[in-house]
Structures are given as structure tokens and as C-alpha cells.
């Protein structure tokens, strides 16, 4: 079976909140100097889900697909080092600043172009925009069923079986292939590529396609949502630190303040 994993390149989210900056005029995030972009967290976990399927069925082919800047080749290489077989890089000026519908249109067109895909895996949400819609939109565009928030994904007999994580429940859901599954962190840690695998990944094929290769024009990518403004909210909370020479004094001070504020 052929699995496509969609991996987005995002600014590193693991930075101190104080170094998070936005260029309001450009409506863009300005990463701190020297901090390289990374594969979106849940997308690396989606690659892990694909590799577990491949571990169980060696005839599985895994394609790592990313839409973004030319630098997105790095996140494809990372997926290939984890054990992916081939990459598809989707770069074109026409792909800049797409909304989710446009993003899903490009990704689903590339998946259709591959032709023989049985399963598409995405993250539950990209860690930058956090929308959590692209997987579902790809499914709609492919006419395939979608199962969101997977904690495990197994494939057998033309069906995918997914354990879903919900805030108050676990569900097991089945759907016929081809299908789209969005993966959550409860699936587990992504595997760490070994040096040998990183070297092997450098030799794996990455195809690069643009709008013309996919038969897409500006009308097909017209936005449905417009970004009006991007800004950093100001918070003006000032913390009152409890003084005291011992934990007991600090705790007593806190309880006193809570009583004064009629909170307990």
C-alpha cells in the first residue's frame, strides 16, 4: 500500500514566549535569529504512524509530502530519514499565503497525481496556525472518509482501524480505504533517525511540483478566509509573590491573601 504523510514546516514552537515576535505590517511571525524551522510536531508523529504500518507490512511505500518554501525540503528529508521512501515538495509563488482550502487543494491535487494512494496521514493540527482542518479538507477533496485524532492506526483487509482520543473517551473507528487519518500526540514519540538513515535519506528521491504540474490556477486557489490582522496580545497581570523565610510562612501568606480576597 502507498501511504502519503503530509508534513508542514513550521517555526520552532519551543522558544521562550518572550522571543515570540510578529511583524504586524506583513502579518507574519518573525522567528528569533538562528532558530531553524522544524517539522510540525504532530506531523512527525504521523510519520511515526506510517512507519509502524510499514514495520508490520514491508510492502508499504511511504511518501512524505510538504507544501511550503524551498526549505521545506528539510522536513521531507527528516521524514525520509525516519524511513520514508520518497518525497514530494510543493513549491510555487502561487502557493504563498494560501488559506486552508487552498492548502488542501494543492495537497489533494498532488495526492491525486500520485494516483495509487491508499492512506493519507496528517497531524491533528499544525503547531503554528492550530486550525486542524487540512486533513478533513483533503478527505473531502479526495472523496474519502476522514478519522480525526488517532492514537493508533492499523491497516488490514482494505480497512483502516483507528483508536481515537477524545477528551472524555476513547473510540475505535473503522473506515474503508482509501481514507485520511489525522494523528494526535497520544500515538507516541516519533522515532529518532540514526546517522546512517540520515545519510541514506540524502539519496532518496524528492519530486518537486508547482501549480502548472498540478493543473492549478489562481482561481482554484482563491482564498475563502482573509487574514485581517496578526498580533501579540498584551497581558497586564502582575504577580504577587508570597514572601516568607520558610515554605510554611509562604503558604500562610497565600492562604491569608486568599481569605482577604474572599476566595476561600
Amino acid at each position: 500500500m502507498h501511504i502519503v504523510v503530509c508534513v508542514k514546516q513550521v517555526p520552532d514552537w519551543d522558544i521562550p514566549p518572550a522571543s515570540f515576535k510578529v511583524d504586524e505590517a506583513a502579518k507574519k511571525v518573525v522567528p528569533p535569529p538562528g532558530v531553524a524551522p522544524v517539522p510540525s510536531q504532530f506531523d512527525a508523529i504521523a510519520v511515526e504512524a506510517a512507519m509502524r504500518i510499514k514495520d508490520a507490512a514491508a510492502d508499504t511505500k511511504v511518501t512524505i509530502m510538504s507544501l511550503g518554501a524551498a526549505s521545506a525540503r528539510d522536513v521531507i528529508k527528516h521524514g525520509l530519514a525516519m524511513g520514508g521512501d520518497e518525497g514530494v515538495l510543493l513549491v510555487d509563488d502561487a502557493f504563498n499565503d494560501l488559506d486552508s482550502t487552498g492548502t488542501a487543494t494543492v495537497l489533494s491535487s498532488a495526492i491525486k497525481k500520485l494516483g495509487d494512494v491508499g492512506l493519507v496521514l496528517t497531524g491533528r493540527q499544525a503547531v503554528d496556525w492550530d486550525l486542524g482542518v487540512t486533513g478533513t479538507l483533503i478527505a473531502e477533496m479526495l472523496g474519502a472518509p476522514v478519522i480525526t485524532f488517532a492514537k493508533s492506526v492499523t491497516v488490514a483487509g482494505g480497512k483502516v482501524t483507528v483508536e481515537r482520543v477524545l477528551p472524555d473517551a476513547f473510540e475505535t473507528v473503522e473506515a474503508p480505504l482509501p481514507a485520511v487519518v489525522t494523528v494526535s500526540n497520544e500515538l507516541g514519540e516519533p522515532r529518532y533517525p540514526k546517522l546512517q538513515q540520515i545519510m541514506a535519506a540524502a539519496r532518496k528521491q524528492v519530486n518537486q511540483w508547482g501549480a502548472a504540474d498540478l493543473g492549478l490556477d489562481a482561481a482554484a486557489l482563491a482564498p475563502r478566509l482573509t487574514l485581517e490582522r496578526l498580533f501579540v496580545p498584551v497581558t497586564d497581570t502582575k504577580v504577587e509573590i508570597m514572601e516568607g523565610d520558610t515554605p510554611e510562612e509562604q503558604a500562610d501568606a497565600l492562604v491569608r491573601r486568599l481569605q482577604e480576597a474572599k476566595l476561600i
Partner: protein
Amino acid sequence: MANGVLVLAELADGAPAPITAELVGAAQRLNAGPVSAMLIGSGVEGAAARITGVETVYVVDNPALAEYTNDAYTQAAVAAAQQAEPAVILLGQTDTGRDLAPALAYKLNTAAAMDTIALEMKDGRLHTTRPAYGGNARAVNSFAAAPAVATVRPKSQDAVEGGSAGRVVKVDFAAGAVRSHVTARTVASSEGVRLEDADVVVTGGRGLGGPEGFQGIEELAHLLGGAVGASRAVADLGWRPVAEQVGLTGKVVSPTIYIAVAVSGASQHMAGCSGSKNIIAINKDPEANIFKAARFGIVGDYKTVLPALIAAVKKAKAGA
């Protein structure tokens, strides 16, 4: 002409869930025409009369909707939306809303703004504000397509309780192909106060060092009549159940008192608790981000601070 606001009603134990009244409140405040609700499920028609503050309740009641599936619920919501012809559709950012909104929007040739915390009509178009970048930024979106579909973060909107019940309209619905099926379902059991409804939440983070660290957390929560919460790091490590996770990908809570113990206060965690009225932070690192959002703080090792706090609360309770 499309007009008005349609909200997706959700039920909990047969009665409207809190998110329903929050959505009705948000919809009324938009001042964008009549507010109606859609109620989807099997055997739910009786609950329609309990949804208040709306003119009409569109009920899609069908055995195929007994269990939530993306296919069946999308079809049902499309049917209700086509009958109601709203300009705006609001859903909760809940299990159901998260899964349903993008598919519903796509089927209606429009788009969904997810996890919004503020909504307003400007020049007749819906503008939504949502956290992005794990809560570090805010993004304001407007719609170039119609109807405008948005999910609304729980507890971000004041609920409207009371008011009269709406006229009930049954929506004709024949379920089409349903491709995915739920074969098993286990509900996480929680004892005591429900985390989302608790007036006091005591949350433990990775700094507790292991599941044993939660003994004090449980004791303090119990003393204050509250619920236990966990950071994602803790849930990922398996120290606590996922059902206790607070944050962007967990639950949203807004208690009167939120005590965060050995939690660093990552933006994605704060996304689930920043609506709390009083955040109290206990952390050994005075630079921890949690102190930036807290009203009261204790800098120290939880191993000594937590027992002292438990003792002080007990003393205060005994004195009261």
C-alpha cells in the same frame, strides 16, 4: 437571502450542554438577524424544547445519528443549514465541532474559522479572532465566502440562559453513505467534580517528577472541593489520564481558582486555563512563564510548599 445565525446545539445527559447557551449568547450579540439552533441525534427531539433564546430549533432526528460519525453528522448539518439558510453558523470547539466544522464548511462551499474567542459583524461580514501559534498570537479573519462558519472556544462567551423555547422544525433527512463506523467506545470515568465545571482546579506538571507527586495535588483539590488537572507533558508520560489534560489540545477550564504546581506555563497550556479568575503558581523557577499569568505565586520546591499549603488550608478551614 441568507440571514441570521444558526448554532449547533449539543446535549449532555439529555439536556443542553453549557456550550449551547454560550453559542446562543454569542449569536444574539452578533445582532445579525434571527438566532436558530440545529439539534442532531437520535431520540433528541424531546430536548428541543429545552433550548432557549432561539426562534427556531431545526431538529434532525434519525437512528443513523445515534453515534457521532463525520459522514452522518455532516449530512445532517448540511440538511439543517440548507433549510435554515443562515448567514453565520456557529459550533463549539468541542469533539463534535472540531471534527464537523471543516467538513460542513467544505460541503457548503465555504470555510471554517476554528477555535475563535471573539466574534463581531463589521460591514455585514463576520470577523473572528482566534489564538494562533499555540496562543502566542491572535489572528483576525474575515470571510470571503458565505455562509461564515466558525467554531467557538468553550467558556470564551457569556452564556444566555432562559428566554423562550423556539419553534421546532423537523428537517427531512435520509442518511446517505456512512463510511466510518464506531466499533467500540470507552468513556473515561471521573470521580468527583467534573474538571470543566469545577470552581477550583489544582493542576500538576512535569516538575512533580512522577505519578506519586500527584498525591498532594489530589489532597489539595479534595480539600478545596476542586478537580485535578494535568499538563500535556504529564498526560503524555502516562502519569495522569488524558481526560485531565488542560490546554490547547486538552480541556478549557475557567475556575475561580486555578492552582498550577510545577507547571512551566507554556502558551499551549495557558490556552486552556487563561480564563481562570485567579491563577496561583507554585514553581521553583522564578522565571517560569506561569508567573506572568498568575495573580499569586510561591517560588519554591513543591515538595515542601505543597504540604505547607495543605496544612495552612486545613488550619484556615478549621478556624472558619
